[in-house]
């Protein structure tokens, strides 16, 4: 990525602002698309959250929620699918990524603005398609977000395996297409559109995480694509990739022959595990940026963090089997996957330790964004330590598919990603709207969301220790009785979390009109996006795009008059931004 280059005007700037439709609806402006993604994710988040609340009512007071046993797996499946793919992926990766990346690399827009627009308009129809599956005969897909065959392949196995599963596959196909287009744009933009002087090692950590996460996602999604195509053929064309011979459903021998269900699991988790990092890493990157800005010091160990990210990504692609310790694969593979999985603790702990160490000798500013970032440290630490248990094949004999797993992954892809998203939205909101979000409301939202969430998902770990299995409609097993009294408690906590999101929505939709006016750089932050007026205009910079003369986090440098130095501020002679 060497070689001189300029402000990259035309590169991405071949589209004009245009009228209402091209400006706000079929927009090619990365900021508008980012907001479109976030709004979509919010709508889907409300559905996903409502599903969670509904599920919790059933779990706390069985039978009172009006859910039947055959609907329950549908609700669980849809909650998982919506939250992972249509809320976290859309808000954090597609949404905030779109907003942050071009601004932070100093580009006018994404490398392929039209592709970017197409990406949003591909995923948008997937949302109603996914939701429509609740209303088709048999109800929504019910084989879990993992869609394991033969349950997902045979219509008679569960009612949701009919129409619902087909719609699920269709909506997922659209999602994958959209996510791929988005990822291609992210990578091309970060690799090729960086401002003059913005070397890779001057890239803000948020951009680094988006880069690593995009590459990881792009390389792992094809496995799911292949699996989905074959599953679709198994369902509708009479092939048997995943359905073995002699399956008897409700007394009837199925026609399928010779397939291997484990194959699907391998393909699925080849995506599924990296997908976790695809979601979690950007949240960590945002936390690094936010913590740097509000602790007025550079993050601890920038280079260590960057290399750790890369190592996490590489290792993340070869450990999928730790989701399958008890699946019946070769026990020797179990050993391999266990040992390699636990190797990830090394780079991952490095990132976590660097997050904590970034607070050393800090001078904190208590914005809501900072609160979320600090909360994220706690969540990622706790969730990460939970991963040490689950990566251990022997401990997994007890934990597999228990509430320990449920608690753990809600820490990682529930709390960490959500905290990162909220931090990012509070932090970059002024850049998009020119106004600040309300801090008081933001703080209240933080406390009412983070603490109940922590309690909720932490207590699930203990239920898991007791042997409570996930995806159960009701618990009548004797051995779990001592932890069942927790169920109503957890449900109340879940309701507090769900209800407190109203505070966020009020803040989000009111602040663009009522919020305090923000200057171009309300946080006195250093990265390139703070060199343009707020809200950033179409094309991001009203005149020339900035160049990067220094690193991304020049805070509190000794002897400087102000406690920060913009990346675009020309440095002392000799530090010319000659390289990209």
């Amino acid at each position, binding site marked *: 990525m060497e070689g001189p280059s300029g402000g990259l005007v035309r590169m991405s700037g071949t589209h004009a602002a245009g009228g209402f439709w091209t400006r706000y609806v079929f927009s090619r402006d990365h900021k508008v698309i980012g907001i479109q993604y976030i709004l979509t994710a919010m709508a889907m988040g409300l559905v996903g959250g409502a599903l969670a609340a509904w599920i919790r009512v059933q779990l706390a007071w069985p039978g009172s929620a009006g859910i*039947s046993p055959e609907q329950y797996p549908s609700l669980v499946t849809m909650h998982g699918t919506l939250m992972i793919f249509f809320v976290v992926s859309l808000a954090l990766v597609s949404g905030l990524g779109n907003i942050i990346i071009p601004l932070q690399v100093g580009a006018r827009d994404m490398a392929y603005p039209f592709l970017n627009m197409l990406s949003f308009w591909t995923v948008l129809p997937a949302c109603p398609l996914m939701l429509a599956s609740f209303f088709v005969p048999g109800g929504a897909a019910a084989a879990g977000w993992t869609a394991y065959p033969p349950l997902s392949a045979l219509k008679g196995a569960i009612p949701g395996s009919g129409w619902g599963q087909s719609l699920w596959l269709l909506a997922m196909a659209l999602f994958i297409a959209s996510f791929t287009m988005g990822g291609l744009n992210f990578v091309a933009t970060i690799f090729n559109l960086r401002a003059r002087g913005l070397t890779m090692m001057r890239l803000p950590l948020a951009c680094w995480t988006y880069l690593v996460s995009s590459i990881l996602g792009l390389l792992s999604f094809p496995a799911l694509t292949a699996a989905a195509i074959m599953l679709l053929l198994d369902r509708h064309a009479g092939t048997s990739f995943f359905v073995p011979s002699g399956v008897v459903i*409700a007394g009837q021998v199925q026609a399928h022959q010779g397939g291997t269900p484990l194959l699907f699991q391998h393909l699925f988790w080849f995506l599924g595990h990296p997908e976790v990092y695809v979601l979690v890493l950007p949240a960590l990157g945002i936390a690094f940026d936010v913590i740097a800005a509000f602790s007025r010091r550079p993050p601890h160990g920038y280079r260590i963090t960057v290399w750790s990210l890369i190592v996490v990504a590489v290792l993340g692609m070869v450990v999928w089997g730790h989701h399958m310790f008890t699946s019946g694969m070769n026990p020797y593979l179990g050993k391999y996957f266990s040992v390699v999985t636990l190797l990830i603790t090394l780079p991952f702990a490095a990132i976590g330790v660097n997050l904590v160490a970034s607070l050393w000798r800090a001078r904190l500013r208590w914005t809501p964004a900072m609160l979320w970032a600090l909360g994220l440290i706690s969540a990622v630490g706790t969730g990460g330590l939970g991963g040490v248990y689950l990566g251990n094949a022997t401990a997994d004999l007890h934990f597999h598919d228990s509430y320990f797993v449920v608690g753990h992954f809600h820490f990682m892809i529930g709390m960490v990603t959500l905290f990162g998203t909220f931090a990012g939205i509070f932090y970059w909101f002024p850049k998009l709207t020119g106004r600040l979000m309300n801090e008081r409301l933001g703080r209240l939202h933080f406390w009412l969301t983070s603490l109940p969430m922590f309690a909720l998902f932490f207590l699930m770990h203990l239920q898991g220790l007791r042997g409570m299995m996930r995806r159960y409609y009701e618990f009548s097993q004797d051995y779990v009785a001592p932890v069942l009294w927790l169920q109503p408690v957890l449900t109340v906590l879940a309701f507090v979390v769900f209800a407190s999101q109203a505070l966020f929505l009020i803040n989000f939709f009111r602040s663009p009109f009522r919020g305090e006016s923000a200057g171009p750089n309300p946080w006195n932050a250093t990265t390139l996006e703070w060199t343009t007026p707020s809200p950033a205009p179409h094309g991001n910079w009203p005149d020339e795009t900035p160049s990067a003369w220094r690193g991304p986090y020049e805070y509190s440098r000794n002897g400087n008059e102000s406690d920060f130095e913009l990346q675009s501020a020309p440095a002392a002679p000799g530090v010319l931004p000659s390289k990209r």
Partner: protein
Amino acid sequence: MDRIWTFSTLVIFGAAAVLAAASSSGRGESAGTSPMIGATIKGKVVFQGKAPKDRKISVEGDKYCSSCNPEGISTERYVIGPNRELCHVFVYVKKGLEGRTFDPPKEAVLLDQKHCVYTPHVFGIMTGQELRIRNSDDTLHNIHATPKLNAEFNFGQPKKGTEEIRTFSFPEIMVPIKCDVHGWMSCYAGVVSHPFFQVTNASGTFELTELPAGEYEIEAWHEKFGTLSQTVKVGDGQTRELEFTFKKK
């Protein structure tokens, strides 16, 4: 204003009249309405040969079912009387009623799940007639019908006292119904488009009454022994007797 009232009254009365006419004509030849006495076909179903025995199924994996069946469950498949009368045989008119339509009765057929067994084990139902499925057990049952022609249904009844209504749209011999939660629980529904069917009881007898005069093919169906059929001609007021003898296949 008056004119509107008059007009709407007329419309309402007119509609009511049309509806009444339609419903009375729709009742058609259904049994009981016509003054004719009709024909009767009755008879007996027996089994010949070494009778297989129902297995006692131990259900110790299920707390509830084993508590109400400590000795295990008998599946009511081979209920054979002392004189070899065969119970649970579905006898119905297979051919001979083509072109006639019959209205389904208003009252529903009740399928009860009690003590982890379906009652009745075999039953007949008319197309369009309501099937009321009740769970009298304090445990989860699911009702999974796997028809070839009709729509498949599969739902759970987690609580005691829950009821659901289903109907069948097409005649089908037979629709197997299973409980996936309790593998031994199964029953069969014979769906026909006329009211001339009966399931033999412990005495192995059946009686199809008020048939219009004509020639009929009568079929008897048993879940393990297959089907037997006989053709019979009856006139008005006549009674004919038939005997079906099943052998082990």
